[in-house]
């Protein structure tokens, strides 16, 4: 019964053994592809730009290691947006002044209740970086780390390489010369 149904199955697909083998081969191929994974190859660090003083600002200069990984404009947009966020956080204006006065009046107990302006902007930055990672950087094998984790000294961009692909293209972008 089983065999007959099996045979029926074969014939019913109308392709016969070869195509079923072909399907199996495809499955194998897909499984192999699924086994490909990315490994961390290198880290690129974007330094702070101190030309305007100690305000938090990062260099928009495009690092050469990312030359073959991401378009220049995308990278510069990301850094410029981050710089704008930080400028907004550090802006001395009405809101920050009121916050200070309120803090003084409540003997700083207000810090237990509300979130400061800077913290609010940091949350926005964190969401922005997450979104950029999902949409732009991860598809290109890169990951941005929030600078706050590094004391806001550098933006760390992790460069990943496809570990499971064929040997000729393995190796990080900077160590791509593996002497072949």
């Amino acid at each position: 019964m089983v065999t007959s149904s099996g045979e029926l199955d074969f014939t019913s697909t109308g392709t016969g053994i070869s195509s079923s083998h072909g399907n199996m081969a495809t499955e194998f191929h897909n499984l192999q592809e699924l086994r490909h994974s990315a490994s961390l190859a290198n880290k690129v660090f974007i330094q702070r730009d101190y030309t305007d003083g100690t305000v938090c600002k990062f260099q928009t200069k495009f690092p050469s290691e990312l030359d073959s990984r991401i378009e220049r404009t995308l990278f510069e947009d990301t850094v410029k947006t981050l710089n704008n966020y930080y400028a907004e956080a550090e802006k001395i204006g009405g809101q920050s002044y009121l916050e200070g006065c309120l803090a003084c009046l409540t003997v700083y107990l207000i810090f237990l209740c509300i979130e400061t302006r800077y913290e609010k902007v940091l949350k926005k930055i964190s969401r922005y970086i997450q979104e950029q990672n999902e949409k732009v950087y991860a598809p290109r094998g890169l990951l941005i780390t929030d600078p706050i984790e590094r004391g806001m000294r550098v933006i760390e961009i992790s460069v990943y390489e496809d570990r499971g692909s064929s040997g000729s293209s393995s190796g990080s972008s900077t160590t791509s010369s593996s002497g072949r």
Partner: protein
Amino acid sequence: MPVGLSVGGALGDPSPSRSFRPSRYVPVSAATAFLVGATTLFFCFTCPWLSDRFSSFIPLYNAVVFLFTLANFCMATFMDPGIFPRAEEDEDKEDDFRAPLYKTVEVRGIQVRMKWCSTCRFYRPPRCSHCSVCDNCVEEFDHHCPWVNNCIGRRNYRYFFLFLLSLTTHIMDVFGFSLLYILHHTKQLDQVHSGVTMAVMCVAGLFFVPVAGLTGFHVVLVARGRTTNEQVTGKFRGGVNPFTHGCLKNIAHVLCSSQAPRYLGRLRKPQSVQVQPPFLRPPLSEAQLAAKVLDNGIQQSKSSLEIMESQSTDAEPPPPPKPEHRYPGLPHTQNEECSLLTEAPPTPSLYKYRPAYSSPGKNHTASTHSSKMSRGNSMTESPSVPVTTGQPSYRSDPSLSSRGGAGCRGGGEGGRAGSGGLGGASAFGGRSYPSFTDTLLQSAAASCSSSLRSAHTAHNALGPLISEGTTSTSYKSLANQTRNGSLSYESLLTPSESPEFESAAHELSPPRPHPPHSLSTAPGPPPILGYTSPFLSAQQREGSLQACPAPLRPSPNRAFLRPTSSPPSRAPPLSPRARSLGSPPPGPAPGHTPLGKSLSYAGGAELQHRPSSSGGGTPMPNSTIKQNVANHNTHSHKPAGGVKKVTGVGGTTYEISV
């Protein structure tokens, strides 16, 4: 020591638990005691009369001022001043001893120096300083205040400043109202209340002078936009302060800016974004494509030129190009510090990697360096050792390097005593030329009479270096090193690869400071033959038609050595060298003093020019001569009587004086 304060957080623990030092808490305890104690006494003994006599507003006012003072005091004491978390290992990719101690950046037109912090492992941002008491780098470091037992930095400077202002006000209030009380109780001074009030007055008066002085000092600093650190170190004395924005803006920056975030103790969100291949790649621009083609062309022509020059007959693929080509920006790479380097010239004479080579957070590169440097203590010991055979047969193929490792283990072992020379070499070539080190290892091995095992271990020490180089590494300098490291090992190996070294030697010759033709010329400081130009190698090869080195296998060597009196252990170390160079002086015979080594080498070099007298007429020990004659057979001089010719495998003939 008992475990004390730990100022760590969930993220980036700045420093390990420090030992409990009670002396640190004396000033802050005293300050707290005086402040709280005196004020409490004032409220208990003086204020009741004041509120009755004048109004109850007085105690209320004093209470508010006191509360404000206390709040600022607590904030200044307990708030994180802006501590930078330690940099992680992968941020510091540069070889420490090649990186400068200072980097300059331009801040609003003024050059500001950033110093490398060896504790925190990063270049300190402008206005950042490392507090030795807290053992942390603090952002916009003002000073370490003992009265609050905390650093004053970007985050808590405002509270410290307000504390000073409010404390001055409070002291003045207490003193004033106490004086008012005393003046109205001049006839009841023997009362307890009066006595206490007078005591409070004294304390207040005593503290007023320093506190007011400090307050005035900080008012000036705030107006000028400077930190205490900058003021006392005289950074902007007579110069321009790049961090000032004008008096009003400076005051606004201190008092009205939003509370800066802390870097420690932050909850680190786990990375939720997955990175999965296949990856998108940007389209290469035409310029990039052209550069790639050109780059390949350059490599190709270079290696073909080498092959032509070296007259190599091997069919191996051309060696990879020099490291500088591979990593075009190696000295100026886009790693952590380079982008700032490009802005202003670094101070070349100061290097951040100071003598403390052992550093816990070092990556493999650095540890390798440190291990090499530690071996390099006996630099003076063996100036001639660098002679070696430098086989840098430049092979980055993993299989070959592993073969190299195996083969070397089998044969190229040398003396542990040779580690002195080895060390010298490594210090000498300490600038990441492990191939140099390796060849030195071999020559040192040759020169030492100890067992094969020691070189084996020394080799193995570099084994991981090699294996790392063959895998894809994330650190350019490490990859660079290991590639070089694999060179010399390869060369040791199989005779068939011997022509390799010449092409590789050419590549490596530029880094070597030695003159290329040193061997054929006077016997001065021995050259590193392996790194000399192909011309020399070819010349030597011509001259040393007979002197093909014996292979690594022990049996022929034993046969080779039987006629001589040298111990068998010497032979294997010798052969690789001799073989690989196709010409002499791997190095002095084992068991010699460093001086002896150089002499023997020099003597060996001279031997080439002394056709017949090398038999036994030199002042050097016979064994040395035998070795040298055997090895220095470049000019195939006719040996004098008493010299035995021994043929090794591969057509090698050695002439040994018996």
